C-alpha cells in the first residue's frame, strides 16, 4: 500500500520536472556535432570541391549506395563528374566518411530527410555539395598531394622541395 502511494507521489512530482520530450517538429533536438546524419560534400578553404573522385567512399559503402565518376579539369585537378547517393539505401554507417582521404564526404547532424516519393531520396552532386568546410576546417588535400593543379605547381605543396633540375650534377 505504501509503495503504491509512493509511486503516485513520485509521478505527481514529475509534473514539476523539466520535460525530456522535445516538441518535435516545433522544437528541434540538439544533436552532437559528430551525429551521423545526412551526407554532404564539403569544400576546401579555397571554396573548391574537396572531392577528388577517388572512389574510396563507394568501395567502403556496405550497401553500395554511392556511385560517382571521376574526371579532371584542364589543369589536372580531379573532381567528380557526377556523384550520387541513394539515401533510400543508405544506412548512415559513416564508413564513407572514414574512408574519405580528403575530408570531402561528411555526415552532418541532420536526419530530416523523409520523402513521400522514394525517387526523391536519390541525391545528385548539386544536392550534396555544401558551401562549407564542415567539421574539418583548414584541410586542403591538394596542398599535401604531389599533383600539380591550377595555382599550385610542382614543388609548391607543403613539405615539397622545388622540382629537381635533372641537368644538374651537383650532389
Amino acid at each position: 500500500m505504501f509503495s503504491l502511494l509512493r509511486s503516485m507521489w513520485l509521478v505527481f512530482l514529475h509534473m514539476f520536472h523539466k520535460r525530456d520530450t522535445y516538441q518535435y517538429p516545433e522544437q528541434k533536438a540538439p544533436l552532437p556535432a559528430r551525429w551521423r546524419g545526412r551526407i554532404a560534400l564539403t569544400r576546401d578553404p579555397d571554396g573548391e570541391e574537396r572531392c577528388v573522385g577517388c572512389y574510396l567512399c563507394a568501395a567502403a559503402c556496405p550497401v553500395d549506395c554511392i556511385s560517382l565518376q571521376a574526371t579532371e579539369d584542364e589543369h589536372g585537378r580531379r573532381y567528380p563528374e557526377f556523384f550520387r547517393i541513394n539515401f533510400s539505401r543508405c544506412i548512415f554507417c559513416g564508413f564513407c566518411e572514414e574512408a574519405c582521404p580528403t575530408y570531402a564526404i561528411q555526415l552532418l547532424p541532420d536526419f530530416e530527410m523523409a520523402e513521400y516519393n522514394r525517387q526523391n531520396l536519390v541525391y545528385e552532386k548539386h544536392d550534396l555539395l555544401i558551401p562549407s568546410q564542415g567539421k574539418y576546417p583548414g584541410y586542403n588535400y591538394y596542398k599535401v598531394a604531389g599533383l600539380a593543379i591550377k595555382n599550385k605547381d610542382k614543388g609548391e605543396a607543403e613539405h615539397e622541395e622545388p622540382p629537381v633540375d635533372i641537368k644538374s650534377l651537383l650532389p
Partner: protein
Amino acid sequence: MPIINIDNIPYEVKEGKNLLEACLSLGLNLPYFCWHPALGSVGACRQCAVKIFKDEQDTRGKLMMACMEPVKDGMRLSVNDSEAVAFRGHVIGWLMTNHPHDCAVCDEGGSCHLQDMTVMTGHAYRDYHFSKRTYRNQNLGPFINHEMNRCIQCYRCVRFYKDFAGGKDLDVFAAHNHVYFGRQQDGTLENEFSGNLVEVCPTGVFTDKTLKQHYTRKWDLTTAPSICQGCGLGCNIIAGERYGSLRQITNRYNGAVNGYFLCDRGRYGYEFVNSKDRIREPLVVHAPDDKANGLPVLQHVRNRMKPGKMIGIGSPRASVESNYVLKELVGEHNFYLGIGEIEHELIRLMLKLLKEGPVRSASLQEAAAADAVVILGEDLTNTAPMMALSVRQAVRRMPVENAISNIHMPAWQDAAVREAVQENKGPLFILNVVETKLDEVATGAYHTAPDNIARIAFAVSHLLDGTLPEVTGMSDEGKQAAATIAAALRGAKRPLVIAGYGGGSEQVIRAAANLAWALKQQGADAMLSFTVPECNSMGLEMLGGLRLESAVDAVLNGSAETVLILENDLYRRLDLHTANQFFGHCKEVIVLDHLHNPTTERANIVLPAGTFAEADGTLVNNEGRAQRFLQVLSPQGSVQESWRWLLQLGDICGHTHLRSLLHYDDLLKAIAAKYPVFAGIDTITPPADFRIAGQKIPREPHRYSGRTAMLANINVSEPKPAEDGDTALSFTMEGYRGEPPSSVIPFFWAPGWNSVQSVNKYQVETGGSLHGGNPGKRLLEPNVNGQTKFYTNIPDPFIPVGGHLLLVPLYHIFGSEELSIHTPGIAQRMPAPYIMLHSEDARRFQVAAGHLLYFMDNGHQYALPVVINDTLQKGAAGIPVGLPHMQVAEAPQLVKI
C-alpha cells in the same frame, strides 16, 4: 629437384630458379619491386630480403636478396624471420620517403604493386616528416601519362622499354637521388609496346591515358576474358566495363601466347566499342510503297530474302560462330568469304602448308625461344607486333645461352648476363621489300622484291639440302645472302621461319614453307609462323567458302539479288569502283555490323551487331589456336551477337537446323560436329551450366561498388542484374570467389595482391603456364608422317617494267587496322596516305617528295603524294594499305604510271 627449407618446412623447387621465384611459385608472399618474371633480377630495390642460414646449427643467418640467390639443394632460409621482416619494412619506408601523398588521385590506386607491398610489409604509417623531392612531368603522347614524383627507382621501365622491347626514347637521366625516367624531351613514346609500361611500372609513374578519360578503379570494373581483335595473333586480354562503356584493356597472361605483354594497338585500340558511330538500333530503309512499317525488324529481313537469290558474305573479323550460322543460313554454295582475292589465296595456302606440311606453327612464346629466325617479306612490327617482340627475345637467345655457359650465371641474372652478352645478337635475317624496324637487330637485312625474296629462300633451301632444286641466274648479292643465311641456319636447333600476308606473295609463302621443311629434314626442330591480317582470318578460311570476286560476279549477272553481309566493310575489300558497281546491282543489302561504315550506308537493313565486348565467340589465330572471348557487358539498345541475330533469322525463316540450336553450347557442338577441323572448339571454355560449389564465376570483384546507386537517377528501384545464359560467368559480384578455370579468368586478384602482379598466384610457376594449362586449343597440328612435297617451282627474278611500278603493300601498326583507328590516340599516330618510291624511280617519273604521283589501276586514276625511301626495291612502289581514304584495295599488283 632440389629441396629447400623455408621457415623449417621443406619444399621441392625447380632447379635453376632464384629464391624469389621459388617462394612466389610456392605461393608465399614475398615483396619485390625490381624483379619481373620476364625481365629477370637486378637486385636494385633490396625489397625481397630473406634470411639465409648456413646449416641447421646456424641461428644468426644473414640477410640476402632472394632474387639474387640461386636455389641450392638443402638450403635453409627464413621469410618470416623478424630481422628480415623488419628489414623489408624499412626498405619500403625509405622508398616511400619521396612518394607523394597521391593515392586518392592516382590512377594506379587499387591496382598498385607499391600499395600492396607497403601493406604486406606492414609499413602502414609514414615515419618521414621532412620535405619531398619533386619532378616535372613530361607529355609522353596519347597513351601514357607521366607522374614522375611517384617513382621508386626500380628501373623496371627502362629495362622493359630499352632492353626488352628495343625502344630508344625512354631512358634514365640525372644522377644520385635525382634520377629521372623519361624522354630526352617531351614527345610521344615511339615504341609500339610503350603501353606495357603501365603494367610494368609497380606504381603510378606511367598510367593509361585513355583510362584517365573515363577513370575507373580496378575494383569497379566488370571484366571478362577476351581476345584482342587488333591482328591475327590472338593475344589474350582482359576488357573492363563501367557504366555501360568499355574502360580499359589489360593483359591476360597466357603462357603460350602473349605472356605478360601487349602491343599498343591491342591495348589502346578498344575505343571503337564506345564510338559515337556505333549502330545501336536496327535501321530499315523503306521503299515508298512499303506498308510494312511497324513489323519486327527480322520480319522485314525475311520479307526481303528471296529463296535461291540470296548470298551471304562472311568476315574475318567476325567469330567462327557468326560465320558458321551465316553459312548454314544461306547454304554452303551461297557463302562467300569476305576477303580480297590475294588475301584469300595467301591464307588458303598458309592453312594448307600448316596442315599438310611436317613443320608445326610456332606460338608466340615458342617463337621467342627460337635460336635462329628468318623473316621473309614481313614488316613484323606493323603486321604482327607481338611477334616482333618475340623475335627480339629470340635474337637474344643464342648469345645468352653462350654467355651462361661461359660465365656460369643463371639466365635470370639480368644485369650480369647483359654485361656478358653486350651487343651480341643471334642470327636473324630479314628479307623485305623495304627496311623494317627489326632490321636494327638483324644479322642481315636484304631489301628486294617479293619474287627475289622467294628466290633467295629457295636458294637457301638448296644449300641446306642439295636434292632441292637450284636457283639459276641469281645475282651475286642474292648468292651471298643465301650463303650467309644457310651457314647461320645450319647450326640452329630451333630455327624459325616467318612469312605472311605482309609480303602479299604466294611465292614467298611457298619458299618459307620449303625452307622450314628443309631445316626439319636436316634434323632441326624447325618452326614455321605465318602472320594473318585479321583476328579470325584463319578461322574463316578453315570454315571455307567461295571467293568474294564470285559474289561480285553473281550479283552482276543477276543470279543473286539479296546480299547478307556479316561484319564486313566491303569497301576495304574491293576497290571503290567495283564496290560501287556491286552495291549498285544488289536489290537488297542486309548488313550486320557494329559501326557505321561505307557498306552500312549502302544497306537497306542494318542490324546492330555486338563487338567483342558485347559478344561471346571463338577466334582462330595465326598459329591455329582457337580461343574464346566472352561478353564483358550487356549491351545497350538492340545490340546482340551476330550469331544470335542470324539464329533468330533462321528461326523466322523456318531453318530446321538453326532452329534446333537453342543455346550457345549447342551452336559450338554443332560446329565441332560438322567440321572435323574445329573438333574440340566446344571445350575451350567450360559450358554454360558449369558451376563451382554450385556458383557461377563473377565478372565483378567483391569490392565492386555503386550497385544500388549507379542507375538510381533513372529509377530508384534497382533493375534485375543481367543474366548470362551462354557462359559460366555471371554479370554480378556474387559467385565463386576462388580461382576459376584458366580459360574463364575474368580478372587477376589474390588476397594482398591487387595489382596485375597477382598473376603469380594463378601460375604453376612464375612465368609458367596457368593452373590447369594455358587457355585455347590448337586446331592445326603438322602432318609428321607423310612425305614432304617440296616446291620446285622457282619464280623468275623481278625485273622492273618501263612505265610501270609494282605496288607493294606497306602496313602500319596505327592505321592499317579497321577498328583501332576509332581510338583518338591511334588516329593521331596514323600516317597520311602516300606512295613510297625509290629515288631513282622518282627521278624516272620526274617527281620529288611531296609531289602527287598519278597512276592507273583497272582503268581508274589515283593520285598519292610521294615519299622517297632508298631502301625500297627499285621498280616497286609502296602504298599504305588499310588507311581510311586509301581507295586501292589490292596489292601487290603492277600499275601503270
